[in-house]
């Protein structure tokens, strides 16, 4: 537990000192979503209809953009092999790094989401559900992404491979995330979708660190 906090603290400190990286995902999120009103036209009804899907897809792409640096810097400067040889189980170190990744990528996206909801004329009723769904869904994106980032670590141009590996796995959180928001907007209960997102999060919390750690061991051999 203490080791987990140490790793999270170190990665947060690194992210804050290199804050350009952290801003990149949020700026990408906001700027890309802003393109849609220009593309599909400014009618409020159209925008309202596509809002949940657009916000989720763009959030997903913003997370994707930040995945490569999750393990790469540590791999290249030797920190990763030192982490592997520290008494801390590698799975815990991975969980710490993913948690720090979510805090510096997922959380800022959630903070920026109300701005986009406003831009897309989203009903206030849907906004709360959107934020709740993102709170459950973005950690899933970070966790799945960590497995992809770990698997492509040894490969040349691994950064290009990550989207190919990870995007298909992002479909379930996308479906449930958009589903929850749309249910709330059309007056239905968002509960089933949110519960499924929560279940996905719990499963991934368990599976992703194990899978990513195994992939990292392989990459370091």
């Amino acid at each position, binding site marked *: 537990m*203490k*080791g987990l906090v*140490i*790793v999270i603290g*170190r990665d947060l*400190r*690194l992210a804050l*000192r*290199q804050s350009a990286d952290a801003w990149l995902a949020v700026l990408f999120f906001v700027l890309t979503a802003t393109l849609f009103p220009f593309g599909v036209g400014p009618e409020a009804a159209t925008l309202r209809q596509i809002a949940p899907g657009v916000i989720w897809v763009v959030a997903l792409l913003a997370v994707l953009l930040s995945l490569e640096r999750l393990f790469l810097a540590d791999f*290249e*400067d*030797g*920190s990763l*092999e*030192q*982490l*592997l*040889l*520290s*008494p*801390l*189980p590698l799975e815990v170190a991975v969980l710490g790094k993913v948690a720090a990744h979510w805090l510096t990528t997922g959380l800022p996206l959630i903070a920026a989401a109300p701005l986009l909801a406003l831009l897309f004329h989203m009903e206030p009723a849907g906004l709360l559900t959107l934020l709740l769904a993102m709170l459950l869904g973005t950690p899933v994106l970070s966790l799945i992404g960590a497995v992809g980032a770990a698997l492509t670590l040894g490969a040349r141009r691994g950064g290009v491979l990550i989207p190919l590996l990870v995007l298909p796995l992002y479909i379930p959180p996308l479906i449930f995330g958009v589903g929850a928001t749309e249910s709330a907007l059309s007056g239905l209960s968002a509960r089933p979708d949110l519960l499924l997102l929560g279940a996905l999060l719990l499963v991934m919390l368990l599976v992703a660190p194990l899978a990513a750690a195994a992939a990292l061991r392989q990459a*370091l*051999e």
Partner: protein
Amino acid sequence: MTLFEGRNLDCRRGGRDVFAGLSFELPAGGALLLTGANGSGKSSLLRMLAGLLRPAGGAILWDGQPVGEDPGAHAARLHYLGHLDAVKPVLSVRENLRFWASLREGAEGQGAEGDGATAEDAGGGEAVPDDSVLGESGRLEAALDHFALGDLADVAGRLLSAGQRRRLALARLLAQPAALWLLDEPSVGLDHASVGRLAAAIAGHRARGGSVIVATHTALDLPDALPLSLDALAPPPLPEMIW
């Protein structure tokens, strides 16, 4: 008494045999000096002994127990210094060192039990309590001072020279105790005075009952180190294919 032992180790990298049938025995407080031409497998052997690389054959034993049975316990008892320094450019020298030291701090109870036993075996137990008297932060500052990094403690990692980065990596060895040091070319980039400090650190480690395995091409003062040359262990070249 043998503490750390390798039996008939084989190493294959990329489908090619690097060395075969390598055996060694290392007592507590002992030193092993690896020599061999470039590509003879010194780094591979050290990575193998650290648990980063699985041997293609043979066994690695600590106190008679195969280390593969409990990789976590093995990792806790060793310091591995590879070619990379694991120095973060945006963290200061002290922050870099503190992170690695604090990761080991939590698990020290479990690791130190084994270490304590080995130190007693070697009859060098006096120096160990000395360390605990110093305390965590005291040990960290002592490690910085030993490698003359005291004045650089607040300098960011990206401003360090290659030799200074290496000294910071070496300071990790002293910031937290570990029974076994695996050092891969530890003196690369070091100036003359720093090589002396490294030799002194190794001597202190051995006096406390610690063991060390060093691969190096440069002259490093290691009194009565057991030499181990990997040149003789390279497999014979494959006969030419006839067809």
